[in-house]
Structure formats: C-alpha cells, structure tokens
C-alpha cells in the first residue's frame, strides 16, 4: 500500500470564522505534509490555529459557519471537496483522532466496550460478537489489564491514564493510516504521560501508521516527532526535521519557545528569556510579519512585508518564514544557544502597537 507521495498533503488551507467582531483567521494558508509511517509534530500556543487545522482535516469544522478553502489531499483525495457521506467513511476509519480530555470525549452513560463496538460497526460489516472481540483485543493492545472484564466498565471507573488508553484503542480500532492526536497527554501526569507516549510510539511501529501530534509541549515533540511544524497566529512559521529544528531553529519565535522553558539538561540558574507581550488576536492580526510586535530583532520594514515560507540554505527540508538575513539569524541563534543575550534582545522591545 505504500504508494509514492505523502499520506496527507495540505495545500494553502484557510479556515475563517465570520463573527460579529470581524473575521477570525484561525488558519491562514498553511501547507504541510505527513509522510507515511512518520510523526509530524505541530507546535504552537493556544490560538495558533493548530487544533482548527487538525479538526478541518476530519471535516469537523464544517457547518459551523466556517469558511474553508485550500486542499487537503489524503492519498490523493481532496477532503475539503468530499461530500459529508464519503468523509464520514474516512473519519474514524482511515483517519482517527485522539483528543486532549479523555473524560469529556467518552460518553459517560455507555460502557467503554459499547463505544468501541460502535466504532467498529460504523465502518465494518461484522457481527456484534466479532466487534466485541476486536474491542477487547484493542483494549489489551493499549495495555488495559484484564481487558475482557474491563470492557464492560464505564468511563468513570477508569483512571485518567486508562481513559486515554481507551480513547487510543477506540481511535485505532479500525487500523487508521493516520492518527491525529491533539494534546493527547496534556491532562495527564508525567509518569502516565510517559506511558502513553511509549504506547503511541509502539503502536505506530506495529501498525505502521502516521501520526500528527499537536502539542504545546516541546519536550513531547522532541521525544515523538520526526518532523516539526511551528505555528504562530494561524500560519506555519517554520518546518524542519526534529533534529534540525531543535539543533538550529531559524525563527525568532522558535528561539523564544526554546529559551523560555526551563529544561532538566540546562544549567539550573540559566536565565529564561520570555517572549514579550502575548499572542495576537486572530481578528486584528499585526501587519507584515505577524510576529514582529513581539520580535526583539524586528526591523521597521518587517511591519510591512509579509514573509513567505522559504528554504533555509544548505539545510534540505528546513523552511522558515522570517525576514531576517540567514547570516543574522545564524549569529543570533549561536549567541542565544550559548546562553548570551544578543544586543538586539537587550535593547528596548518594540511596543506591541500593531496588535490593537
């Protein structure tokens, strides 16, 4: 089944919500690919459009007054143009999704087993008994102890980690080719998070599926992703392989993310360099480079010119949307990585005038 080309290719996707206050540009012309059997990590803060982008892939943003344009090519079929009926045959079947909060994504009044059986029967023409067998098999696969008995438990009888396992079992029950996981471990404790990440990694290998992992946690991305896309204000501002992105990030926003979190491997008293200001409104976006009001390195003309995603010289597969000179960027990151503050960052921060 491994035909050439990416499993998922998203081209110039835009999702807009007209509201009383103006049009919310939730996703603003993003292009990316998910390769077969690989994990794409999508990083961004709340309001960066990462969740809307993934929901649109499944057609879940349809009929909410959203305006969607662009193409979402899943094995060559354009999901944006697909009628609802055909999309439903793909959703939960070839493309499945795991959400952040397992308690509110499981129906509290039906047993876990019932909900898994329902997922099987929606897409497979099998008997109820067979579907139940499959449900038990999946619960066992995701590490629910004594699955044959626990299958009849209700969601409230499961712990948080077990619920997320059940969600993953439900998502994988039909052998999807692509799993979209939206902050799958954010609600979990670290030790349980480690279990779930291990589980996803193992299942990805065993079932040969691709994962689109949406998260704000750079540690989770570093651990799981083969490729990374960084989103800011509805756009992708940088994409690269995980190695390249963490070793030589190019976008000042990516630097900001990396330098603003304490890590276990950094010196204990290393200074955190926060990104000044706060994320912009998606209705009134800053002009030019959307990041310029918060960028310590912004030049006056960055408020006018809108940067496009461009290839980084000598680094295949690395793209960045930044108006700074490549050499300047390299120098700045070298200083930041060495724990020094570049002069530009020390100088007065550009006021967030464009945001209002």
């Amino acid at each position, binding site marked *: 089944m491994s035909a050439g080309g990416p499993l998922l290719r998203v081209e110039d996707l835009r999702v807009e919500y007209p509201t009383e206050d103006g049009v919310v540009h939730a996703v603003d012309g993003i292009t990316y690919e998910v390769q077969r059997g690989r994990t794409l990590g999508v990083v961004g803060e709340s309001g960066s459009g990462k969740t809307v982008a993934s929901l649109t892939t499944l057609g879940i943003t349809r009929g909410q007054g959203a305006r969607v344009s662009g193409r979402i090519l899943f094995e060559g079929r354009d999901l944006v143009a697909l009628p609802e009926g055909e999309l439903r045959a793909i959703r939960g079947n070839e493309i499945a999704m795991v959400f952040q909060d397992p308690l509110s994504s499981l129906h509290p009044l039906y047993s876990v087993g019932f909900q898994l059986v329902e997922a099987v029967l929606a897409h497979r023409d099998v008997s109820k008994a067979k579907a139940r067998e499959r449900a038990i098999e999946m619960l066992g696969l995701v590490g629910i102890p004594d699955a044959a008995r626990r299958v009849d438990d209700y969601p409230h009888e499961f712990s948080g980690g077990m619920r997320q396992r059940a969600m993953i079992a439900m998502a994988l029950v039909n052998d999807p080719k692509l799993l979209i996981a939206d902050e799958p471990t954010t609600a979990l404790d670290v030790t349980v998070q480690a279990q779930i990440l291990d589980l996803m990694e193992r299942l990805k290998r065993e079932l040969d599926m691709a994962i689109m992992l949406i998260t704000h946690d750079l540690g989770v991305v570093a651990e799981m992703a083969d490729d990374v896309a960084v989103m800011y204000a509805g756009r992708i501002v940088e994409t690269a392989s995980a190695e390249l992105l963490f070793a030589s990030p190019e976008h000042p926003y990516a630097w900001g993310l990396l330098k603003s979190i304490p890590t276990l491997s950094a010196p204990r008293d290393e200074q955190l360099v926060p990104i000044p200001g706060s994320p912009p409104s998606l209705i009134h976006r800053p002009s030019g480079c959307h990041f310029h009001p918060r960028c310590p390195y912004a030049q006056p003309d960055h408020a006018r010119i809108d940067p496009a995603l461009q290839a980084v010289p000598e680094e295949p597969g690395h793209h960045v949307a930044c108006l700074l000179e490549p050499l300047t960027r390299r120098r700045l990151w070298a200083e930041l990585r060495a724990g020094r503050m570049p002069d530009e960052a020390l100088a007065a921060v550009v006021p*967030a005038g464009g945001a209002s």
Partner: protein
Amino acid sequence: MSAGAGPQPGPSPGDQSAVVATPRGAQPGGDEPLVQVRDLVKHFPITRGIVVQRKIGAVKAVDGVSFDVQRGETLGIVGETGCGKSTTARLMMRLLDASGGEVRFEGREITRLKGAPLKAVRREMQMIFQDPYSSLNPRKTVGSIIGEPFAIHGLEQGRGERKRAVGELMERVGLNPEHYNRYPHEFSGGQRQRIGVARALALKPKLLIADEPVSALDVSIQAQVLNLLREMQRELGLTLIFIAHDLSVVRHMCDRVAVMYLGKIVEIGPGDALYGSPRHPYTGALLSAVPLVDPSASRGRRPTLAGDVPSPANPPSGCRFHTRCPKAQERCSAQEPSLEETGTGTRAACHYPLTPLEVAEIGVRSAR
C-alpha cells in the same frame, strides 16, 4: 475575545536582567525557620447517606508531612495529581483545617488560631492560584481587586493613597497603572496572573505560596511570570513555596525540593542533590519520565513506571510506593520507611534507595 486588550509591552522592568537565585538574604529572626510543619495530617471524610451521614472512610490527602521552610528560600513541592501538594499548601494557609499535626509560623502554632490573631497571621502569608481566570472576581475592577487586602486589614488611608499604592504595585509587576479601572476579562492570562501576584504582594507578606502559578499559561508567557516571581522574591526578600507538577520548572525556581507521593514526602533536599542524585525510586521515575527537549538524546526509551497512583482513600501498606516500585521487596509492603539521610544531601523514605549505577541510567538522560 480579549486577546487584543490594549498595548501591553509584557516584560516587567527586570525581565532582561540576570535572574540568579540569591536567597537567604540576611534577615532578622536568626536561624529559626520561617515555617515549621510537623506531622501535618488532613483526612477528608467519605460519607454515606443524605440526611444522616455516616463516615465510611477517609481520603488521606496529607498523611504525616513534616518540613521546614527557611527565611528567604524557595521550597518546591512536586508530585502527581492527588499527592497532597495543594492540600498541604491550603493547610499552611489555613484555608483548610488540619486533622492533626501543627504548622508553626515564626515559631507560633497557627493551626488552631481563630479571630484576630488568625487574621494577623494571614497578612504575613499570601497565595497565588493556578487559574488566573477563576481566581479574580470578574465584576470588580483590577484596582479594587489589588486594593482589597488594604480594606480587609483596615489599612486604608483614603482613596488617593490607596490608588497610589495599587498603581505602584501594578507597575512593579509589569502592569500599566492606567488600567486601574479595567476588569479582569480585559487582560490576557499572563497579565491576570500578574494581577494575582500584585494582590498577593499588596500587604508585603513574608511567605508567598504559589500553587501551580504557570501551568494554565501559554509557554511563552510562563517565563514572564516565573521571572517576575524570582525578581519579586529577590527585591522583597520573600520566602516562596512553589508547588508544581512540572519538574523542570521546579528545578529552575527552587533551592530545595520536596517530592510527595500519596500524602507523604518521599524525598526532600537541595535541588542540585535531588535532581543530580535522587535516592528514592519515585523521584528517579519522575525525573526519567520528563521528556527532554533534545531529539537526539531522547530516542532511547527508558523504563517507565507501570500503573496508576493508588487511591488515597485506601493507600498501600508499608511504603506507599511499593505497588509501583521496580525495586520493591517483601519488607516494603510490611514496614513503612521513614525519611532518613541518604548521604548524597537529600533525605529519602526508602528501604532500598537507588544506587549510583541506577541513578546513572537516569542521569545519562539529563546530563547531555
């Protein structure tokens, strides 16, 4: 949406300056710890029946916790959901009444204080909460939220004076004093947490307890608040208790760290010792579970802790961690270990502490 709530150049004056932990400022009071917690216990009853309630059990949220907090230091408390870290904080603040044990603040037992003496103690300790959205009254202006402590404690010296004091506080935490008359919804999450900090600092407390102060904030905003807290601590000589589940954040912020599991402290010690050579297997497991921000280092998967945290209503016998502990022996389920010196700087409650070799397996991950 309130994202565009006014131009607010986020960073506070000291955001750019070096933030190095320089605690233990010489302060009056000598060597006596600011806070001494001894055998603190909080059991929440589990009841059955509606009219006639019978007690059928208890959730042992905090079950015999003892530690000291020195003046000017930052003590971190880490642990997973339900380990009792927030309950411990609320007991110290007297937001909850303890079932047993004592809390001494400047040498004075406070768990049974009432009325005016309690109010006087409360002036000295303040708290910052996790959720900046629900911990501010949406119907009050920011000015009156920050200024309310003055009113509560009868420190009002006329409207002009109060407004000036609040304006000063707002400036200090990096808020624009001109926003005095705005409402909480007009501020972003990070700015709201700054309001919380300003309110907590209004009465110049000696002790500040921050309960998950950044976990509801976006990544880029977290650092702003963390830097603000460190800066305030340095300027005001605050003693800080920092409660969080994020081990990296706690390591960054704290001089000493206590690790809690099911209502007990399992290991406590200076940050460097605890993170560098943990002795309790649970500390080790927590550390090894943290994803590293380095794809080249983290590809080799480590052993993870199996299972979930048991119910605090019915904790395991002996060492409470024995049901999940990779090193557990028979003795662990029978005999409860007490906190003892480990030789590496920390005190751990474990019969079979991690060996340097076992630590090295974890250490490899964080050393790179």
